[in-house]
């Protein structure tokens, strides 16, 4: 059993605080993804769990052991590094078996387990090559193989896919998912790519400036972002945010456009409150080309500034109340810049955030 508990974990570099007291519970066999922009402290947090970084304050527990002062080798974890960190002077076979050899495993059993891992990851034909003779994707798989042969309690991944091209990244993402279903181990996975986070995670932890911004299942975080930061970070293209005021029982944008207050939020706001209206591009579409045709909504006329056809859909850049707004057009139709179209905003999934704090009004 390996649940992980972070209890007010703090990291300081000299006088500089980079992680400000993180509380997090990770269940046994759970796949948790830490996601956030560059420099927010994801790697630092992961490395504190691994034992590669001293913990300046708080407790880290793996299972029921406090591991604050245990060296990495006593934590029964394995880690996949961003640039793989293979041992350059060992061939693939030796790279995979190194941890077992150090642990004093019998040779026959090392051979067996290395072969198994190589089989799972399709590395069997490459066993005698050195890392220098492998492609990026192959090195990445060796790094993963090295992590799984040891059958650790916890897998730690630090942006393992960020050095791969888009296609390979997609493939490897699927393989990691499958791998987790096969080996069922607790996983902590760091990425700044929200697509990876959404697709892999049982639970997403969104981080910002050394703090946890929101924790929840991918759908929960996507559908109910607690702050404007999460709202724009999760989901691509990002959610549109429009400053507005509640006035006359409606959400009034800067240019006076009135949008009805979404029903489920109507008891959360009072007249005169300054808010930010959040609405995803998927929910703004030219009339007749949207995902949902009924439900509460509002129609506005906007001019197309740019249209990017993506195949089944087009991304449309337009402007509303002086702000750039991204919208989506579903169904085949060519749109030209300069065209004025009537757009429908579907409001059943719209969000309202407090203008000052950026927190969702559902939170007060």
């Amino acid at each position, binding site marked *: 059993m390996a649940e992980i508990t972070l209890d007010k974990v703090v990291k300081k570099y000299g006088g500089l605080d980079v992680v400000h007291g993180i509380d997090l519970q990770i269940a046994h066999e759970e796949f948790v993804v830490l996601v956030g922009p560059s420099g927010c402290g994801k790697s630092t947090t992961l490395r504190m769990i691994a034992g*590669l970084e001293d913990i300046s304050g708080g407790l880290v527990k793996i299972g029921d052991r406090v591991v604050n002062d245990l060296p990495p*080798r006593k934590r029964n974890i394995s880690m996949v590094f961003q640039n793989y960190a293979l041992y350059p002077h060992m061939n693939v076979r030796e790279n995979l078996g190194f941890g077992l050899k*150090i642990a004093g495993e019998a040779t026959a059993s090392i051979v067996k387990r290395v072969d198994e891992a190589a089989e799972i990851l399709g590395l069997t034909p490459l066993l005698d090559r050195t890392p220098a003779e492998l492609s990026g994707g192959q090195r990445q798989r060796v790094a993963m193989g090295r992590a799984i042969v040891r059958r650790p309690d916890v897998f730690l991944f630090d942006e393992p896919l960020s050095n791969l091209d888009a296609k390979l990244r997609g493939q490897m993402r699927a393989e990691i998912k499958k791998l987790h279903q096969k080996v069922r181990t607790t996983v902590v996975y760091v990425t700044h790519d929200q697509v990876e986070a959404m697709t892999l995670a049982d639970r997403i932890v969104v981080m910002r400036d050394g703090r946890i911004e929101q924790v929840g299942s991918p759908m929960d975080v996507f559908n109910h972002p607690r702050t404007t930061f999460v709202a724009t970070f999760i989901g691509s293209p990002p959610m549109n945010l429009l400053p507005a005021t509640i006035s006359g029982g409606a959400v009034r944008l800067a240019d006076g456009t009135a949008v009805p207050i979404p029903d489920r939020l109507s008891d959360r706001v009072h007249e005169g409150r300054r808010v930010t209206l959040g609405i995803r591009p998927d929910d703004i579409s030219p009339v007749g080309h949207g995902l949902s045709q009924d439900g509460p909504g509002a129609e506005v006329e906007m001019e197309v500034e740019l249209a990017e056809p993506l195949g089944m859909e087009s991304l449309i850049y337009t402007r509303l109340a002086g702000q750039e707004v991204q919208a989506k057009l579903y169904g085949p139709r060519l749109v030209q810049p300069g065209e004025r179209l009537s757009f429908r905003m579907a409001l059943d999934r719209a969000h309202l955030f407090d203008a000052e704090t950026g927190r969702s009004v559902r939170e007060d």
Partner: protein
Amino acid sequence: MPFWRRESAIPYLLLLPALAIMALVVAFPLIFSLYTSFTGYRLVRPDSLYDWVGLRNYSRILQDYDFWVAFGRTVLFLTVVLNVEFLLGLGIALLINRITWGQRTLRTIMMFPMMFSPILVGFQFKFMFNDNIGIVNNALQSLGLSDGAIAWLVDGKLAFFSIAFAEVWMSTSVFAILLLAGLFAMPRDPLEAAKVDGCNAWQTFRHITLPFLMPFAYIAMAIRSLDVARAYDIVTVMTDGGPAGRTELLWTLIARVGYDNSRMGLANAMAYVSTILSILFTWYFYRKLVAARRYMGGAQ
């Protein structure tokens, strides 16, 4: 059109001066000395230059007890000195690598011994190891560690030790510098991966750091093996191969045969045999280096 007027001849014509100089300063002495090794050439009798004796010098060397003792002693000297320098250099490099403050200054200070002429280093240690007035004996006696004067440069084994000591003092920094460069170039990731893979500090060093440093060590060894195999100056100053030939190395012996006994033909034959020794050592380390670099090269 004659050959030298053709366009295709131009590169060769341009190379000609360089080739001529090379021939004059490298090829000619090489061939000349090789030739003399087949003659009974004596410096005091110039006409003996034409005294072709075939392989007699070489066959004489094969049976020459003194030569083979010097040969063996040189190999021993090389082995001892290179290993000690490697271990000390590694230690120094690891320590300096740890230091965060004043590292540059220390790196510079570390190189001081290399800045002295070997002759001066020889004189310095000759003085320090002198049995009557030397500082080493003085210190040992003052500390009560020895009661008599130890004959550092007279006893065969001690003299060998003293010379090796001087050599090590002078050149350990070659290893230290190169290994330190290796440590600076060392990627941090594999070290961390090893820690996570279950290595303690010693295992990490043994399985990750050391293999990474070995190419740097081989470079240092290749350089130093050439240096040490031709050791002459320090030995000449400190003991002059004596007493009674007990610290005779190849080149002190060769110089004695060639200049003191003026048997240049024989000396040249010895020199050729010793050169082979140097080449073997260098080739060996070079092979090691190439093998080690094969995996280090393109990795990551």
